[in-house]
């Protein structure tokens, strides 16, 4: 595993999420309008963690949900059918400021699919995007509002988020060179 590098360790992930939560709070003055929506796999757990930190900042619970993007992808006939994860949006998205949460921002295609999927549930007032890692190589005009860490990468490298909620021994973001 000599070609694997740890980009963020557990402390760095926690610090990044705390900073993102404060930036979300700074950007959105009407805290009762904000809801978080995580994109599985990875973003769903991050959304839950961010909701908890934000609840501490705002002193009220912050709703969060999970949004699967598989049915809205633009490459469905070019690849093996993706796994469909449960979508759980336990609040009305109409009029809300929805912060989409993803682990890694890469081509931007998942974000595009997520925005389409979210519109099936209503019309949010605003959609913002929070990512733990922005690795570049965008294929669509999409930009994150809140970024944990910018990581310059080669297109064939792979970035993975490991979280204890998903069964990992410790929280880590690792980069694998091909």
């Amino acid at each position, binding site marked *: 595993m000599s070609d694997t590098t740890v980009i963020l360790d557990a402390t760095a992930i926690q610090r990044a999420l705390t900073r993102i939560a404060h930036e979300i709070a700074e950007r959105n003055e009407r805290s009762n309008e904000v809801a978080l929506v995580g994109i599985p796999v990875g973003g769903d757990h991050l959304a839950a963690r961010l909701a908890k930190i934000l609840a501490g900042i705002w002193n009220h619970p912050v709703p969060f949900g999970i949004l*699967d993007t598989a*049915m809205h992808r633009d490459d*469905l006939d070019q690849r*093996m*059918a*993706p796994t*469909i*994860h449960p979508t759980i949006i336990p609040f009305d998205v109409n009029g809300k400021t929805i912060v989409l949460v993803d682990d890694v921002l890469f081509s931007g295609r998942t974000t595009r699919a997520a925005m389409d999927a979210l519109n*099936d*549930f209503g019309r949010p007032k605003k959609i913002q995007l929070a990512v733990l890692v922005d690795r570049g190589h965008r294929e669509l005009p999409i930009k994150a509002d809140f970024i944990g860490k910018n990581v310059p990468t080669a297109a064939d490298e792979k970035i993975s988020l490991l979280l204890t909620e998903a069964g990992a021994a410790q929280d880590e973001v690792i980069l694998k060179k091909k």
Partner: protein
Amino acid sequence: MAWTQKHLLDIESLTAEEITTVLDTARGFKAVGERAIKKVPALRGKTVVNLFVEPSTRTRTSFELAATRLSADIVNFSTEASSFKKGETLKDTALNLQALNADFIIIRHSASGAPHFLSRVLNAHVINAGDGAHEHPTQALLDAFTIREKKGKIAGLNVTILGDILYSRVARSDIWTLTKLGAKVTLCGPATLVPKTFEQMGCRVTYDVDEAIRDADIINLLRIQHERQRKTMFPSIGEYTQLFGLNKARFAKIKPDALIMHPGPINRGVEIDSEIADCSRSVILEQVTNGLAVRMAVLFLVNGGKV
């Protein structure tokens, strides 16, 4: 995820993992059906042809709605209005449909193997919606989905299939699906319609209906397939009802949590007592709801499959 098949032709050639992938995917699509907006763009721009060379209402409608909810365009092509009556062969009809850029062909045909034949001559994805007495894969998948949803598992359950097994494509697909997933399948019905040779498929055959249903977690009733029987296989409908029908006396002796299933169309008062068909342990209408989700899942999965 473990789905690389370009077609869905039968259950016999699928692995347990592939079957489970369909059931997991269908769970996601069932949730879509419960939303205010029940449509997703997964098959936008694709054309689906329902080629039904044998009458069917529920399967055709279910596939039609499944394709529509995936944003595909759907064309219905039935025997009554088709050129089969004018002497065109199945292959020529299918090639004509492909020339119109059909991406999926859903076929029901009275000849076993018709979908397999089409898959060899066409580039389109082929889905078997019932071929002769051979297989009806989506029915078996929706049965398995319903059982798993209600019971939380399939492995280890006792499933009894009661009725006309010999002429039933549902029975064959159900047997393949459920035995692959680890259920214990028992077949029961008149000896003429339940040959012992079915034991080679990994299930048990008995002619004692009370014994067959006593320990069953699932009782799946099948209709007598009058249209497929060449000669009289049992003396009368009345006698069948008396000997094998699920009546109140038999119902009183089954496990209290046993589920009653039926692929439809049901013949009230023949294989099932009318009140039992409508009781809370009957999941017959839920099977219809789940059929839609399973067919969406199948279209979604084969769309990603390559040869």
